[in-house]
């Protein structure tokens, strides 16, 4: 890969990581500000998780989403954050795909809690696949442009 192409890919990765990051922060925030039981009820529509896990998960998942999303947005531990985000989006895809395969009656995937847009599982599945792919691109990029990582340890990037 020529330096020019690599620079272009690095720039694209830096810009494109903002989208999955912003979506994660937004969706996590909308759920974190509401009672956890509300998101737990949405999770129960998937008929896949044991009831005892629903509320603890509903409490924890929004914070994980917000943290990973904020790290992507600001470029803090970009590659690790991008990998974690790709895993998260992958998990969401598995969740949604099983719901679609089982033809569960759902009008709202619940991804944005009750306050955000009510997307159908099929719409969210496509969105999550695209956002997950952007995360893979960000995880692969070593340049980490416009990131806090570069401010924290510039020497590491100067070596490259």
């Amino acid at each position, binding site marked *: 890969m020529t330096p020019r192409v690599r620079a272009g890919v690095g720039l694209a990765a830096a810009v494109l990581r903002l989208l999955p990051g912003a979506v994660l922060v937004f969706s996590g925030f909308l759920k974190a500000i509401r*009672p956890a039981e*509300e998101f737990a009820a949405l999770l129960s529509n998937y008929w896949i998780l044991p009831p005892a896990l629903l509320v603890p998960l509903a409490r924890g998942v929004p914070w994980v989403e917000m943290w990973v999303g904020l790290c992507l947005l600001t470029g803090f531990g970009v590659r690790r954050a991008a990998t974690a985000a790709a895993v998260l989006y992958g998990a969401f895809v598995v969740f949604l795909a099983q719901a679609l395969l089982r033809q569960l009656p759902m009008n709202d995937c619940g991804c944005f809690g009750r306050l955000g847009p009510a997307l159908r599982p099929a719409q969210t599945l496509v969105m999550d696949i695209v956002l997950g792919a952007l995360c893979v691109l960000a995880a692969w990029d070593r340049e980490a442009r416009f990131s806090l990582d570069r401010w924290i340890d510039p020497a590491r990037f100067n070596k490259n």
Partner: protein
Amino acid sequence: MPCGGLHLQGQGVTPRVRRAATAAGLLTTLAVAVAIGRQTPSVASGAPPYRWLGPPNATVVLEEFSDFECPKCAQAQTDIKNLQNAAPDRIALVFHHAPLRQHAHAVPAARAAEAAGLQGKFWEYAERLFERQKEWAPHPPVAGHDPRPFLLAYARDLGLDAARFTADMDGTLTADRVRQDRETADRIAIPATPTVFVKDRMLVGSSQIASLGPRFVQWALDQ
């Protein structure tokens, strides 16, 4: 290349320290944002007295949002009553209408319950509506089905003044009260029916009411 970093590094701030400080800053930002945005739904019960079951000076008030046409609401009634029966001298139950828009007969039923309430029989009538839900609101819905004869028959069964009941059911007072409740349900974004509030905590759906309800009530009583 950002120059601020190099400047700080020159002063002996190691990347590790900077990383820890950044993580702390980001986490604090998140925590503050969530604390500011936190929505704790409060119902501030404005229900008429006939929809209040239990002691007037109850220390714990369970605020129920239900739809008479919702099968899960009918299913949850025993569990909801059991929550109140855990300490009937300290817990009150308040009913709020949350008629879902997809339920064609939910509003007439809610207005009928209000009309019964005006004659002091709200809870008995509500119980009847839930018990005989399949009769006045068949599932799946039947085209052209009219619930009104059933609603009037239940009123007569309970010994209500039929003429007054009909006038109240069609009157503006019952319409206003049901509309106000629906607006409250929309304002606090009731996620599903039935939803029960135990102080500022929420139980969404019949399974949460059954599984988490007793623990929430105990927590509220212990406060």
